[in-house]
Each structure stands twice: as structure tokens, then as C-alpha cells.
């Protein structure tokens, strides 16, 4: 027999949590110690990295190797620390959202309003790309317009908290804000365009035959402890998954930092070379890397003369459009719709690249 309601796993776990009061104190104490250790590490990082490089390893600050090593020893732990903090914060925010509730909010919304909402919700709703198919079917069947669904599916990977923290950490808040604003704009406009094109007939036929069980939209009834645990789990999951990418990315960045002469990229990735933006997008789309791996490379490229818009466009193409996710979506979308989806988003990213090369 099929049940008409989705129970939430958190119901079970919160029962356990409230049964053991001392757990709560332990959790808060652990959290406090964690924050203190974090802050301490963050503050002493630069000094430790420098003294390791120049005093312990006895490398010359002016040498290629010395400058690469110092860059790596400072950036790698800094980025991982920032990552842990932001993933925790985002985890707490995400614990307030579920895909079911997002769908309920978006169902029946019209274009534009729906697109704007879907963009914002795409950022905060917890969602892994392997869920793209059930989520797509669930949204469309529940009456979320196709274009609004696409805005959600574009915004979710495009605005990535890992990329955001890396951009803020390496370039500052202004670039981080630009990234979020333009990423949202691309998702909203691309979804709106796909909606306007009336592509509904390019959804695979079997989708409409699915008799979907009605999922309930009740939000999980979580306590503060549950949300903190949710955030800590997110830190454990994401940091344990992305740290190799961070190290490889920063390693490549460090090598470029130390060995590639300044300005060498200006000729073919600088502002003068207009074709570099579409070229960067074309190269970036089939590439797939974790956001954690791509940003340090982007930083090194910019440092050596690549234009900011070109580098940002490259990054967005790599993390926003990925081959694996496209292949997953191919199961529910005919190739024409896949092509339009890729095309519209790629054009959006290219425009953003040009825009920033022109105004920054």
C-alpha cells in the first residue's frame, strides 16, 4: 500500500536528541571550541605559512619555488577553513528548506515572478544533481512551469557556496557579490527564455504518463540541535569530498603563481582579445570540476593577466553546466530541449563575461 505522506527522518533523530539532554550541552560546547580553534588557525595562518617556507624549508622569497610553496601553504588551509565555515552556515540555512516545500511555493507561479523565486530557492534548497530527474518530474507534474523549473535547475549548481567562499576569500566581497548577482540573472533570464520558447513538447513522453504519488509539503520539525547537526554533517560531507580538489586546484594555482611570468596570459585571455570569452565558455562547458578546484586556477589566471570577465565566464561554464548533469537530464528531455538549455545558458555566461570585461 502506498502511503500518501512522506515522513521525515529528522522526526526520529530529534526524538533521540531531546531524550538525551546532556547531548545538547556537549554539542554547544563542541561547537564553541570548534569556533575558537577555527579563529585561532585563521589568524596565525599567514605567519605559520611564511615561517615554514622561509625558515624551516629555507626557501628564498624571491625564488619560483619559494613563492609557489608560500602561496600553497597559506592558501590551501585558508580556503579549507573558509569552506568549513561557509558550508556550515549554508547547511543551517538549508535545513529550513526542502525540495517539497520549494515545489509547493513554485507550483502554478507565472513566468518572471516564478523565475525570480525559483532562482533564489535554487540557491538555498538542498539538492544533489543525481536527484535532477525525480525533481524535474515532480516539479513539472505539480504544475511548476517548465521555464521556472529550468531556472531552479540552472541556479542550483551555478550559484555554488563553495565557489562563493573561494571568490570572497581570494578576491574580496565585491567579486563574490558580482558572481551571485550575475549567476542569478543568468538562471532567471535563461529560464524565462526557455519558458517563452514553449518547449513543453520536447519533454520525453513517458514523463506525463507517470502517476506520481503526492508528496506532502510539511517542513521537517527540527530543533536547533538538529539544524546544527545538519550543518555539521554538511561540513563533514562536503569538506571530505572536495578537499582533494582544493589541494589540486591550489597546487596548480601555486605553480602558475610561482612559475608563469606575469602578463603572459594578457595576450590571449586579456581584455583585448574579445574572442577569449566565448572560447573560455566553449572550453568550460564540457569540463567538469568541483567549484573548489576551479577557483584557485581562476585566481592564478587573473593574476597573470587574464581579464576578470573571461575568467569568471570560464568558471561559471565549468561549474554551472556539466556533462554528467546534462546526461542525467537527457533521460527526461529530448535533445532539442537539451540543446536550447545548454545554448541559452552558455550565451548568458558569455554576455556576463563581455559585460565584466567592459566595465571592470
Amino acid at each position, binding site marked *: 500500500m502506498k502511503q500518501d505522506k512522506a515522513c521525515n*527522518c529528522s522526526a*526520529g533523530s530529534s526524538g533521540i536528541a531531546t531524550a538525551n539532554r546532556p547531548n545538547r550541552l556537549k554539542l554547544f560546547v563542541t561547537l564553541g571550541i570548534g569556533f575558537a580553534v577555527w579563529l585561532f588557525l585563521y589568524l596565525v595562518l599567514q605567519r605559520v605559512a611564511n615561517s615554514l617556507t622561509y625558515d624551516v624549508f629555507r626557501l628564498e622569497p624571491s625564488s619560483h619555488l619559494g613563492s609557489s610553496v608560500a602561496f600553497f601553504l597559506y592558501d590551501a588551509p585558508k580556503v579549507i577553513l573558509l569552506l568549513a565555515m561557509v558550508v556550515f552556515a549554508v547547511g543551517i540555512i538549508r535545513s529550513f528548506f*526542502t525540495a517539497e516545500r520549494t515545489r509547493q511555493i513554485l507550483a502554478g507561479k507565472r513566468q518572471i515572478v516564478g523565475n525570480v523565486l525559483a532562482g533564489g530557492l535554487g540557491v538555498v534548497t538542498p539538492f544533489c544533481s543525481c536527484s535532477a*530527474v525525480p525533481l524535474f*518530474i515532480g516539479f513539472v507534474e505539480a504544475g511548476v512551469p517548465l521555464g521556472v523549473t529550468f531556472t531552479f535547475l540552472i541556479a542550483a549548481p551555478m550559484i555554488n557556496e563553495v565557489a562563493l567562499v573561494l571568490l570572497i576569500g581570494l578576491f574580496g566581497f565585491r567579486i563574490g557579490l558580482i558572481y551571485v548577482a550575475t549567476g542569478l540573472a543568468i538562471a532567471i533570464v535563461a529560464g524565462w527564455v526557455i519558458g517563452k520558447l514553449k518547449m513543453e513538447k520536447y519533454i520525453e513522453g513517458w514523463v506525463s504518463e507517470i502517476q506520481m504519488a503526492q508528496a506532502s509539503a510539511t517542513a521537517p520539525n527540527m530543533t536547533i540541535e538538529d539544524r546544527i547537526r545538519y550543518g555539521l554533517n554538511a561540513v563533514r560531507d562536503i569538506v571530505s569530498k572536495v578537499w582533494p580538489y582544493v589541494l589540486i586546484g591550489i597546487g596548480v594555482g601555486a605553480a602558475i603563481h610561482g612559475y608563469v611570468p606575469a602578463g603572459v596570459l594578457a595576450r590571449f585571455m586579456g581584455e583585448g582579445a574579445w574572442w577569449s570569452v566565448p572560447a573560455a565558455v566553449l572550453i568550460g562547458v564540457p569540463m567538469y570540476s568541483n567549484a573548489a578546484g576551479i577557483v584557485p586556477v581562476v585566481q592564478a589566471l587573473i593574476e597573470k593577466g587574464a581579464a576578470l570577465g573571461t575568467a569568471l565566464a570560464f568558471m561559471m561554464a565549468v561549474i554551472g553546466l556539466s556533462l554528467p548533469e546534462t546526461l542525467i537530464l537527457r533521460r527526461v528531455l529530448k535533445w532539442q530541449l537539451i540543446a536550447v538549455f545548454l545554448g541559452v545558458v552558455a550565451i548568458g555566461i558569455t554576455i556576463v563575461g563581455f559585460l565584466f570585461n567592459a566595465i571592470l
Partner: protein
Amino acid sequence: MKIKVLGPGCARCHRLEQTVKDVVKELAVDASIEEVKDVKKIMAYPILTTPGLVVNEELVCSGKVPDKAEVTQLIVNALEKQQRGDRK
């Protein structure tokens, strides 16, 4: 007891399946564990985000990988429900 793990076969789904296997072994429950990868079959349950856990045809968890304690709790709950049902 019939347990199904819903998911297209990504790493998260495999992790859930492994946790379920561990818990079933630990509790010594008589249970069959089935992996459901077909999207059409997955969508027969009220699920939006995978992985999902179905116990005795009831979706008890979806959209996240519950830890061992949660899975244990969910299976114990289902066992109690099953026994209540048997007694009737």
C-alpha cells in the same frame, strides 16, 4: 520486512544502502533489501529528491543520507508498526 533504497545509483544512494545493510545486520532483522534504480518505479513513491528509504512500502526518508542512528530508529519504528499490525 521489505526495505527498498531508491536512487539512480550515485554515491549517496550507495552510502545509504550500506548503512541500511549494517543496521539490518546489527539488529538481526529478517529483511530483504532492494535497490530501486528505475526512475518510473522511484516516482511511484512520494519522493522529489533521492536517495529515498522505503520500509514496508512506506517512504520513511528522502533527500538526505541519514546516519546510522536515524536508520536504526526508522527500522525500529517500522518493526513496532509491523508487530502492531500482525497482532490485529
